[in-house]
């Protein structure tokens, strides 16, 4: 490694020794966790470590692949909290507005993100999950506004968000995809009601959003009316690929938790257990290499259809294997309830980690949906005949 990079590593390590919060694991409530996230994000922005994947013109942006890797390795090493609250703003909103937004929208929203404005993603609906194009939330044009009515669900951190990436239906004519439009909605608009959802591991990470004649200015539309599907792809692509380098390195760092678990139960010399640990370690290393390679392709404009699905599926399956081994090594101890650590996928609270791992196998296009994409769009396996109706089944 060049001396420049070594210096860079030393610099961020020193900074983290000084600044990284150490008490975030003890946040007893979701609100307290969110507060700690805000403070941590402010510090990272000021130091230039918050958005290494943004372009150079942004403070802290324009980092090379190796620099990004070092940042994530060091964050993991310092056991610093992952940015969950600003996740949608720094990835989804940034990618969408950066790629498809007007100059004016970029000026207006991207600066605000670095100032701490938070976003949520309002795509999924009760009847439109994997089949996202089935959304029904309706937007009707009224002068300079759209009037939006409907319901969104599973929206991560919506209860704390200032803004929403909102996918709506502006037409029911033609193909389902053709009638979709992409809006940026203020969460404090009249008619917006947010209700947190209780999750099986005790968190309230996502929420339902009810929309009752909410007025959204037309200049807060991204892309043309009817072009929402294409814009949404930019949003989805950001969560499938880019963020996985950080998550993979975090999982790599957290291998120590499994090693410690093994020691705790007195099996540090159990050859069978060591083999399983070794196999997992190797697999995580391989997934890290895959995430690296994906980011390199992305930066060199060499990404191909399906690459992002491969990385996401590989990470999600590996994350499950991680939690699975932890649960196994913990044995009965792992079955006694322990308070969860908000925002940590590799916390060592094994049952919670296991339940949390579904976030990556279901959200952002489930494993099954990724497999469909890989099979059909990468490997050229033919799609099934399109329509299925109750009459055919009868």
């Amino acid at each position, binding site marked *: 490694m060049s001396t420049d990079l070594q210096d860079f590593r030393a610099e961020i390590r020193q900074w983290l020794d000084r600044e990284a919060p150490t008490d975030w694991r003890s946040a007893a409530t979701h609100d307290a966790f969110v507060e700690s996230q805000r403070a941590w994000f402010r510090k990272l922005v000021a130091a230039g470590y918050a958005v290494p994947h943004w372009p150079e013109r942004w403070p802290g942006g324009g980092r090379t692949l190796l620099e990004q890797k070092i940042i994530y390795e060091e964050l993991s090493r310092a056991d610093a909290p992952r940015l969950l609250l600003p996740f949608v703003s720094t990835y989804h909103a940034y990618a969408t507005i950066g790629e498809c937004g007007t100059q004016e929208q970029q000026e207006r929203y991207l600066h605000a993100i670095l100032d701490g404005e938070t976003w949520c993603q309002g795509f999924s609906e009760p009847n439109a999950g994997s089949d996202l194009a089935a959304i029904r939330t309706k937007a009707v044009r009224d002068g300079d506004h759209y009037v939006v009515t409907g319901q969104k669900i599973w929206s991560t951190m919506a209860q704390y968000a200032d803004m929403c990436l909102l996918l709506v239906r502006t037409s029911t004519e033609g193909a389902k995809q053709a009638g979709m439009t992409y809006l940026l909605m203020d969460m404090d608009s009249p008619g917006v009601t947010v209700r947190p959802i209780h999750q099986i591991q005790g968190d309230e990470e996502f929420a339902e959003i009810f929309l009752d004649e909410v007025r959204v200015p037309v200049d807060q539309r991204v892309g043309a009316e009817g072009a929402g599907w294409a814009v949404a792809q930019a949003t989805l692509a950001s969560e499938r690929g880019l963020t996985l380098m950080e998550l993979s390195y975090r999982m790599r760092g957290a*291998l*120590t938790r*499994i*090693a*410690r678990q*093994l*020691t705790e139960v007195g099996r*540090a010399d159990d*050859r069978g*257990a*060591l*083999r*399983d*640990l*070794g*196999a997992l*370690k*190797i*697999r995580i*290393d*391989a*997934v890290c*290499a*895959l995430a*690296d*390679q*994906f980011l390199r392709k992305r930066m060199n404009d060499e990404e191909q259809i399906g690459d992002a699905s*491969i990385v996401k*599926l*590989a990470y999600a*399956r590996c994350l499950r294997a991680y939690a699975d081994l932890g649960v196994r090594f913990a044995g009965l101890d792992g079955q006694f309830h322990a308070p969860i650590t908000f925002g940590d996928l590799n916390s060592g609270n094994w049952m919670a980690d296991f339940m949390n791992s579904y976030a990556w196998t279901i959200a952002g296009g489930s494993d*099954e949906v*990724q*497999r*469909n994409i*890989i*099979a*059909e769009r*990468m*490997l*050229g*396996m*033919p*799609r*099934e005949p399109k329509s299925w109706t109750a009459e055919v089944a009868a």
Partner: protein
Amino acid sequence: MSEMRQTLEDSARKVFPNWEAARDASDAWAQVAQLGWFMVGVPEKIGGLGLGDEGLAIIFAELGRALVPGPVLTQFLVIEALVAGAPFEERDGLLERAMSGEIMTASLAIGGRSSEAVMDADKASHILLRREDVVALISQDGAQVKARETWDVSRRLFDVAVVDDAQRYVVARGQKAAQLNDRLDTLLCIALAGDALGGARAALGLTLDHLKGRSQFDRPLAMFQALKHRVADLKMMIDTADAFYADRTSQSLTALEAGELKNFCCAVYRDTVEDAIQLHGGVGLTTEYAIHRFFKRAFLNCALGGDADYWNERAGRAAMAESQAKA
């Protein structure tokens, strides 16, 4: 893609477009020698091409893709022993002969089992013998060789017993022998990993062709989602192995790092061929279809160069040590 990769892959694909092109062992051997592959890893100043492990890694994957038979992998081990060991009077001459394709062989096993799984020992002029404290090249007439038939017909393996007064060139001794053995284990593991990766890709390709070409229930098999998902999982694992291989072989590796790589790639190969036979249906069980050839080579690769239990355990112990160092 680097220029080196492009050049090596292009020439490999021209000569060995598929496994059938490499079917005849002595033809394939002549082709490999002619392509100059035995010179790839040797430094320029002693007559090689100086492309290092990165260049070799590309070739290993091509050998696996085309199921190239014959003692190619072991030839690389002998060449590496000559390059990395202590120079002796006849070294340059032997090296030149090995690079030009005179068969010299070695074992594909590790851990003191160097008299087993020696490739094509009957055809070799010299056999590399690896002991903990000494690595030596003995001439073939100083060895008794016994053929062991393998399931994988692309490899011919022999047990070797060395007669006491065999003529030998000592390549390394003592501490140096331990270092050289480590280096040879590393290279062997990279070679098996590459072979596995290339083979897995090819086996997946054959399987896809089959699924797209055969119809049941009035539709191509490839339309069934149950099969799509299995194939997609294989593709995901193969791409992961691919990235892992590219990443690791661009650095200089310890034996453990290479063993980990070998383990991962061989496991992916094995999983791929296991499913590949199933997805072929009955024809997968016939010698008429090629898939069994990949299947058998994949299983042999798993058993060579240290098996899964061996490397997983070492990796696990290393992870424990790493975690203790962090605490």
